[in-house]
């Protein structure tokens, strides 16, 4: 494997891991994954049960 191929493989792996983690977190409700700085969802946790 050439040096170029190693760098390219590393960048692609990092991108795939980043996207996978982001979507997993969004679906698991840990964050919305929108990355919005002003978005209220970034600062709030899922609603708690009041009962």
């Amino acid at each position, binding site marked *: 494997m050439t040096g170029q191929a190693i760098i390219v493989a590393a960048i692609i792996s990092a991108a795939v891991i980043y996207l996978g983690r982001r979507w997993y977190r969004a679906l698991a409700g840990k964050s919305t994954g929108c990355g919005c700085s002003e978005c209220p969802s970034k600062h709030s946790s899922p609603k708690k049960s009041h*009962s």
Partner: protein
Amino acid sequence: MHKTVAVIGNPNVGKTTLFNALTGLSNSTGNYPGVTVDRKVGAMRVNGATIDLVDLPGTYSLAARSPDEMIVVDVLLGQQAGEQPIDAILAVVDATNLERNLYLVSQLREFNKPLVIALNMCDLADKREIKIDTETLSKELGAEVVRICARSRAGIDELRGAIAEVAESASTNGIHGPSYPEELTREVAALETELGARRDKIGRAVPKQEAFRLLLDRDGYIEKRLARGYPEVTQLVEAYRNRVAHNGSLAAIEAKSRYTWIRKIVAAGVRKPATRTRTTSDKIDGVLTHKLGGTVVFILIMAVVFQAIFSWAGPLMDLIDASIGSFGDWIGGRLPEGMLQSLVVDGIIGGVGGVLVFLPQIVILMLFISLLEDCGYMARAAFLMDKLLSRCGLSGQSFIPMLSSFACAIPGIMATRTIGNRRDRITTILVAPLMSCSARLPVYTLLISTFIPAKTVLGFLNLQGIVLFAMYSAGILVAIPVAWILKKTLLKGDTPPFLLELPTYKVPQWGVVLRKVYGQGKEFVVRAGTIIFAVAVVVWALAYFPHADSITQKFDAERAQIEQSGVQGDELAAALQDVDNAESSAHLRNSYFGRIGIAIEPAVGPLGWDWRIGMAAIASFPAREVIIATLGTIFSLGGDVDEESESLKETLHTVQRADGGRLFNIPVALSIMVFFALCCQCAATLAVIKRETNSYAWPAFTFAYMTTIAYIASMLVYQITIRLGWGNIA
């Protein structure tokens, strides 16, 4: 230990502006009721001590009918999970409308907490010649009353001192509140005792103030919540209610008691002019809330916004585009030829750079939305829309979340927490993603500026601006029948009446406006640098590999043949360029991306798309603006970018179908835009719908119905416009 003070007030009394002034935190403020949906905490420093301020959702009353109103009650009762019990209350009231604001204060008095009252908008009260005797008010209310103007920061230091003093002293100055009929007081005490006896069944103690609200608020949030764990509570409370309200409604008994108390206080401490003068706000409202005049002004304002997006952003976009192009050339020249150069230039710079070009348009759109919000116009727009929304079973209350969705569906969906009626709330959540968010803007403007002529129509309107306006309207026009159908079928039910307070018009605060614009611009750049960057890399990989050697060898042989044929000069360069393009195209068709794309081509064919557009649309389901990055990458890798194509826009004009015809024309561009206007291509939005509805069914339904409508509408637009001959317009 830090003291904690809850900041409470009616919607739109300047609570968030005051919170920012006291804590120095950057929170957004809006001019329509209900903007503060979430809990915000900030530290206020005074005399070397730190006091935590909790900014609670705006509410007119503690008769909780929605989740955010319930949070206010829970914080006051010290039973909100994750929240410290509060030491004092800071009530923010509008000095120009004391009667209405004191209703909430009368309820706060009953929580036995030290209270400070910030008399906001005193400057406006002075202008209207309303004289308020703060000393008398303070005595009558049993609370510290401080005159302030949150916008100009007048009185803020004095207020800080008062908060610190009251929080430290923990004095309630005795109970100064309304008097109720004896039978009500008696039944509340009896209910509290009975609920205490059933504590084990209920699962927790019910404090007196909660028992009081439970008895008064028929079908209220407290009752519904208790009934979830202990269904018998409804029957139990109803028996108590019947004993109290045999002579009238409970709400009327409460209102009468409170307003008797309020009138006494206002009579003692407030002097108003004999006749109410018609204010400037009243005069402006005469036009802006007029059925016909208001609608005309609304359409004109929107038209100006969309015209400005095209007219003002152009030069800056060209500059960014040229800078990104030069940067790509510079980087490309320094990297050795091969897959790394292709990844950086075609994938990353071609993809991310293509999206960043649209930053000026996002900034202009957000600037207008923030200005209109901050000056108070948006509440008028909600008022105008109430009639329209009531026809499809919703109310003006749904307009505010829908309006927020024009910036981003996520805060819009979260703003539905202010809607008390569950069916209305879910309906609004389901149609909110149909509003054109800022992520759709780059898709619209790329295709409009490329294919729609910049002609002037009706003497002053730009055709491109009109098409953009039509795309934004498409979401609203589809949302209306969708909401109507939902309210007649899955979410059938009555809609409670909508009460909206129209705030006084104000000169926008540039600090607040610019902060919002900065936040949105930053988000766009951050998304380009994170999600879009990552997707561009993945798309590039799928479109580059397996990069078969057999294809490379075949075209190397062709190149050798041309070079040996004796052709020279420009002719040779052109022939070699054709071979390069053919090779890129062959690699792309053979890539993983190409193979999937060719398999799905029959499905997207009726929309006028080829497999490349189909794949770009599919790649955009996680985040819609990815389509630009994907098209940039596909056409770079496919050899469609020639030396004259300085930008993606120019490439779109020249790119060809397999049969040699032009891939893009007006019907194709319209079909793509309509698809993007109506399709739910945002994973984050679906995740928030799941969270807010606590169900996987609603996001699945949203995705299914929006994608189906988008496909059908897009196909209709293409098939109709192609038959009208628009495909031949150059």
